[in-house]
């Protein structure tokens, strides 16, 4: 039982990453909390990871906002049209 609860820093940070997307299991979270007792580095990693998640969320919002207007330029489409016509002959 105790062996199962004992995880490495590599496993702990993997759980922490998973948990940033709300996809870590309850058991995983318990293992992570137990790991924190003896590992201050992973505590720091987790705090920083939460900040990074906020940063990525903000990036995601900004990216999605701009995304709808993403398109090829008129000129690029005309070049493509000619290329396509050549192929289609």
């Amino acid at each position, binding site marked *: 039982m105790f062996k199962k609860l004992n*995880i*490495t820093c590599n496993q702990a*940070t993997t759980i922490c990453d998973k948990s940033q997307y709300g996809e870590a299991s309850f058991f995983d979270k318990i293992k992570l909390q137990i790991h924190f007792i003896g590992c201050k*580095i992973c505590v*720091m990693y987790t705090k920083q990871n939460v900040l990074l998640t*906020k940063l990525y969320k903000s990036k995601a919002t900004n*990216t*999605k906002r701009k995304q709808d207007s993403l398109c090829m330029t008129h000129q690029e489409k005309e070049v493509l049209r000619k290329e*396509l016509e050549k192929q289609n002959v």
Partner: protein
Amino acid sequence: MSSPSPITHTLDPAKWIDNYSDYLFRYTTVRINDHEISKDLVQETFFSGLKSAKNFEGKATERTWLISILKRKIIDHYRKKNSKKGQAEVRMNFYNDGENEGDWIEERVPQSWDSEVEKKIENKELQHQIDLCVDKLPKKYAMVFRMKTIQEVDTEVICKELGISSSNLWVIIHRARMQLRKCLEDNWFNN
């Protein structure tokens, strides 16, 4: 090209550019984040579409059919190794064998950050730095990270599209976030 049955879809290549180029371009760009490569992949998709038009059975809509071609092009793209982007190796952060297996490698241990990090989140340059750091990842990692974190696509959908298992996805996400963390730390957050 197809039978006259009303439920059978048909192809109309003359209208592809007007009807689908922006849609396909956007689909590619959100995965690859490179204007030129996206444009090329859209072009290749149309070319392949023309070549295989005779095999179109009309079961799917024209758009779905074109997307299925594009998806294969995107997968081929991220499997190609010999390009500038994505050549970077993922550095190890933990010992992978011996007594210390799974422990942090000393020089890769996270450093403390300046206390102003939270205030910088909306900073445009920092947001741009994310792209620069993601571009340094191997292509497959960059794509999985972008889809999961920036596009917020469901795990299952990504796994299906890229043909990977969910545990594989989490290993990729873990390594990608580790590497990005280090890249942002070196460029922005270091004390």
